[in-house]
């Protein structure tokens, strides 16, 4: 029982990260109908920025802020310099260009930093509290929940309550009409990319200390898990992405706890396969359709 409780909390903490990363995928999908396959590589790049800033200044938090800023900037640059020029004749084009970005980013990181694992410290203790014999959460897990929760609430507030959020939704939903009404559709798209990459950078900063360390390929498997999370929730729905992330996190935690950590990639593949074959629109597709 106590093992189950521990695995549940651990899974939720992992899931929160997947949720943030899936949210970034959903943001771009809603804005541009593109699944950003370069999301993982972009997040790793920002984590390397954090590494450089932290080692130069000696402060984890300066690096953290630098990663988020680098994420926002990188997202905007990717949209303005690359994605804007991709033809829309086939949905494959954007995917292929994103994969090209993956290669470029990973290669540049390998050239600058080398292909070895670099240590990635966590800002808080990762040993879990115990209460009444039950192993619960670590301070770092609480930090993850806090950070992801703040981002989710912030995005919800922005899209639901502010003028700029309304414009972004309008630009994604009906670009032509929005343009006629004076919305800067291109600018909204760039903003969407920046926000998504910023959220992705946060997710990368949160997950990399819990994995082996910093490496150009550090996010490959995380990307697959987050993509699965986004698909579980339906690519169109931000709440779905959050729930999907938690579901994937719990599944991975139970599988690695009860079966073995080597098997978790197989579990992700199996979940993705089952969801895609039974409910390709995601578990929450019906609800999302009614909202729109």
């Amino acid at each position, binding site marked *: 029982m106590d093992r189950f409780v521990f695995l549940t909390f651990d899974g939720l903490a992992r899931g929160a990260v997947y949720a943030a990363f899936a949210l970034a995928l959903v943001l771009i999908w809603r804005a541009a109908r593109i699944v950003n396959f370069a999301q993982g590589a972009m997040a790793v790049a920002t984590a390397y920025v954090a590494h450089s800033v932290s080692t130069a200044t000696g402060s984890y938090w300066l690096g953290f802020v630098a990663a988020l800023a680098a994420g926002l900037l990188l997202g905007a640059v990717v949209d303005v310099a690359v994605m804007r020029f991709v033809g829309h004749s086939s949905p*494959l084009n954007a995917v292929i260009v994103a994969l*090209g970005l993956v290669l470029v980013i990973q290669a540049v990181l390998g050239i600058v930093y080398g*292909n070895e694992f670099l240590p990635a410290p966590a800002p808080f203790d990762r040993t879990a509290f115990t209460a009444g014999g039950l192993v619960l959460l670590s301070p770092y897990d609480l930090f993850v929940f806090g950070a992801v929760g703040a981002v989710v609430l912030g995005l919800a507030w922005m899209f639901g309550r502010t003028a700029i959020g309304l414009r972004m939704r309008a630009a994604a939903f009906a670009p032509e009409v929005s343009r006629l009404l004076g919305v800067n559709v291109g600018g909204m798209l760039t903003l969407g990319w920046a926000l998504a990459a910023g959220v992705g950078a946060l997710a990368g900063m949160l997950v990399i200390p819990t994995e082996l360390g910093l490496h150009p390929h550090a996010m490959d498997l995380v990307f*697959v898990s987050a*993509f699965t999370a986004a698909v579980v929730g339906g690519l169109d729905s931000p709440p779905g992405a959050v729930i999907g992330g938690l579901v994937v996190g719990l599944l991975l935690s139970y599988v690695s706890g009860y079966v073995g950590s080597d098997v978790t990639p197989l579990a*992700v593949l199996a979940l993705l396969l089952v969801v895609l*074959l039974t409910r390709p629109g995601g578990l929450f597709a019906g609800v999302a359709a009614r909202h729109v």
Partner: protein
Amino acid sequence: MNAPTRVTAPASAAVGSAGRGNRLRRSTLLRHLAVALVAALLLVAASYGLEPFRNFQLATVAAYLCATAGLTVLTGLNGQLSLGHGALMATGAYTVALTQGRFLDSGVTSGWLLVVSLLASVLVTVAVGAVIGLAAARLRGPYLAGLTLAVAVVVPAVAITFDGVFGGEQGLSVPVEPPPLALGPYFPYERWQAWLAGAAMLLTMLLLANLVRSRFGRALRAVRDDEVAARLAGIHVGRTQVLAFVVSAGCAGLGGGLLAVLAQSVSPGAFSLTLSLFLLMAIVIGGLGSLAGAVWGAVLLVALPDLTHSVTELFTLSPSVAQRWEGNLPLAIFGVTLIVVMIAAPGGIHGLLTRAGRLLARRRRP
């Protein structure tokens, strides 16, 4: 296989009504056979002219070509994007390693064992491809890409999880027989490799070229261009997609099996996600719409690391820095080229060449 003679009859009748001399031009199968024969002769001649290392590279190009040609049929002609072909190549490679090992253990030795192992690798990958293909036929664009990406990331994990069978991180060695004695006692091993891989590649290309020209090939393109129209024209879309995946998986399996034979070993590191991405890059840069593009792609896959190696050698770098550049520069160049090609010249190298050829022809004929 010979369906095209019937279906393309009107087109070829319009081209050459003069009859007899145009027999070669009219029969797709005969034309492809002729091209294959010429290519085989060129290959043999080249294998005698080249030094051993170049022969090995030639063999590697042939092995990659099996995979890129299969992927061209799937992605270029059928419009299904697969990022999992590296994993399918791994499936073929491990099958060859396991069958060859089993043969060795039971003490059987014969030159034909390799052919049997390679056939086994095709059959196993076809089976795996059918499973993925059944799922793929129900998925679209980014969803399929995501699923196959998951396959590509997960397969190395399989090799490590079941390390009792697959040898974990180190992988397995592939024991291979020396060239048959009939070729003479001093027949260079690399030339034998080039022949072996070349023969398998030519057979694959011949089959694929005929397939692409057949009724099935037209169904492939019809499904890619407009699924609804294809369905209205009586094409079974799902079946076509699954078949395309199966065919292309078999080709990838053969390519992977050949790579294993060439390297005489398999390990999960050789079949990472990067390989899958490389295969896709290769066919996109080569030119998505045609098998000729796959040839360019396969050549690029082998030539580019070599080229960057000679470029990095021009600069005097410290060994560790040089190693970083050498491993990563081809990746960066491939990535940049891919983005530029996708944006500026979606036809790839083959598209550029045909356009240049057409321009020249127009200028000559006022």
